[in-house]
């Protein structure tokens, strides 16, 4: 198959996702939306892994890694959400900006 779409295109998509994820993490006030940004970052990395696996590398390691990453993302999301819930309970906010009593 002779394709125009190549590795680079996937990588660019992933890079865009990565950047958007970062942007989300640093601009969103709501902790859950920060989490969404993080998920985007993880997904972009995963996309890389899978793309590299398919383009020219003779092993499936990347895909295996992707599986682990997805698992991990779930775990992390769970913990983060738990913490956010707790914060919500204790401080009555999920606004990352407002959680700034510890400083300097």
């Amino acid at each position, binding site marked *: 198959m002779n394709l125009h779409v190549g590795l680079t295109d996937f990588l660019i998509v992933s890079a865009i996702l990565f950047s958007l994820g970062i942007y989300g993490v640093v*601009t969103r006030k709501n902790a859950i939306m*920060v989490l969404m940004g993080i998920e985007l970052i993880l997904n972009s990395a995963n996309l890389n892994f899978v793309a590299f696996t398919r383009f020219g590398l003779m092993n499936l390691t990347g895909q295996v890694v992707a599986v682990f990453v997805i698992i991990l993302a779930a775990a992390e999301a769970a913990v983060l959400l738990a913490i956010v819930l707790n914060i919500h309970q204790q401080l009555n906010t999920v606004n*990352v900006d407002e959680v*700034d*009593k510890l*400083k300097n």
Partner: protein
Amino acid sequence: MTLLHLAIAVLFLPLSGFTLLIFFGKKIRRSDLVETAILFVALAFSLYIMIEKLFILHLGTLDLTFRWIDIGALVGHPGFVLDLGIAIDNITAIMLVVVTLISSLVHLFSLGYMHDDIRYTRYYAYLGFFSFSMLGIVLSNNILMMYVFWELVGISSYLLIGHWFEKKSASDAGKKAFIVNRVGDVGFFIGIMIVFTSLHTVLFSGIFKGIAAGQLSGPLLTAAGILIFCGAVGKSAQFPLHVWLPDAMEGPTPVSALIHAATMVAAGVYLVARVYPMLDADALTVIAYIGAMTAFLAATIAITQNDIKKVLAYSTISQLGYMILGLGVGAYSAGFFHLVTHAAFKAGLFLGSGSVIYAMHHEQDMRNMGGLRKKMPITYWTFVIFSLSISGIPLTSGFLSKDSILGGALAYGMLSGNYIIPVLGYGVVFLTAFYMFRLIIVTFHGEPRDLHKFEHAKESPAVMTIPLIVLASLSLFIFYTFNPFSPESSWIMKDVVKPESVVPAAQSRGWSKPAVIETAMSPTASSTSSQAQSGTKSVTYYEEALEESHYFGMGLSLTLAFLGILAAFIIYHWKKIDAEKLKQSVKPVYTFLLNKWYFDELYGATVVAGTVRLSRMMAWFDGHIIDGIVNGAATVTRGASTLSGQFDHYVVDGLVNFSARFTGLLGRGARQVQTGKIQTYIVFALLGVIIIFFAFRQF
């Protein structure tokens, strides 16, 4: 027991007295007598030494050297060795007697004078310590030990001047004496350093040998000579370091007699005499000028002073100037002779003034005295003898010694063309006679001015008058020579032979007679030979010039002295000229002299104030700038803080605070980043990633 052992005994007797009195003074009932007795024993020993030395051993030196410091040499390395020791030659022997004699007489005198003092024992202890130090100077056979004792007499002088330290002026005077002396001593010290560094020895004999061998010559030798002379300038109160001596009169009068008239101040002269062989022409010229200047300066000041002791103090300075002048011009023996005679009559003058002061209940201002002649006959008559002696009237010892100095000066002037020196010298003769008789007339003649004190005045007790009488008799010619008009015939002039110069010929005065001739002939012999050549009036040799000028000089000085006495009588006794009017007519000069040429003010304004200001500046500098600079950024702070006007606050804080502040500022900057907002942190981390990437992109 050899003479040397005896000399050591003489040296340490007063010290033992000092130790005894310091530690057990309170336990010994008549400690004063103990100390006095010790001094008389020392006197006896000294006399024995002198007689033995002068009349039995004649010339030659007894020497005892020991190794003081031996940082011994390793193989092939010079190491460092210091030898010290004592030596007795003729001038030492004579000086021993002078010192012990005056000292014992002063001890005796003090029994009366200081009787009621609160620190009587301490006073005697210090006197003992002084005697020890002074004898040490006399006995040293090396320049270092001389320096050591030099400092020690300085200290004892300090202690004795400040004897009545409750008086601010007394403690000030002590301090001033010590510090001014130190200035001279620094020069002395540097001189020693030069000598030692070049010659690796401090023994006089070694030094002279080394110089003779040419190991030290040229400007360095001149410098060494002048620097060593600096010590004498300090101790003998020569211009420009003479300012301490008048102030030193704050001490008890016997102390003034002993230390500040007869012995310690003469140590400078003794020092110059000691190192005489190494002084080259330039150094000697400097010495001569300093001496002449001092003699004149002090004499002018003495005219105007009203404090009896001040007059005597300036007179001392003036006479010391004579001695220095004498040595400087080459009249070695005469200079030393004057030292001896001066010791006797000046000590006498001081003790006499002490007697007066004692009688007047510690009144020192002459203007409050008068008419004491009848009340205190012994004091008066001895005083007159002393005054005649100092004025250089024939039949006195002063005439002998002073005349020979003046003769030397005249000869020197003729040879070198430095006429200013003899001119000043003879001028001083007039001034001396004038102020001395002014003193006598105002104090002893006329009507009493303070009747109350006059009423209570009476002749002093025997312990005080006996020393006066002894000293008065010593001020007569008979002890020195049988011919009152011929100084040359005195035994001192004969026994104190001008030592041979060791400086290279190029640096020495050319007009000394060749050594062979000089040692071979007696003074008279040399004078005859010079007379033979002097038909042409062009004299080449010092001895010839001396002979040439002899009678003229003697006549001139006598005339001047009588004129001086006459002037004093005209003004103060017969009151032909009103003293007050005279003062008014030359007011600027008078004020100038009364204020001692403003030396104190000058030094106060320049050296003292300068040092004080410098020290304040340094202290400020230390507290502010150095601390600041070390802190890291004093300049930055200075710029910023002059604006805020908080310079001090910021800079004084010093290293720790400042560096804490400085680093703290950085820290605070870094701390501001820690906003507490997690997203800021993330932005910074990202920024970090980007910066690292771009910073290290260039592989």
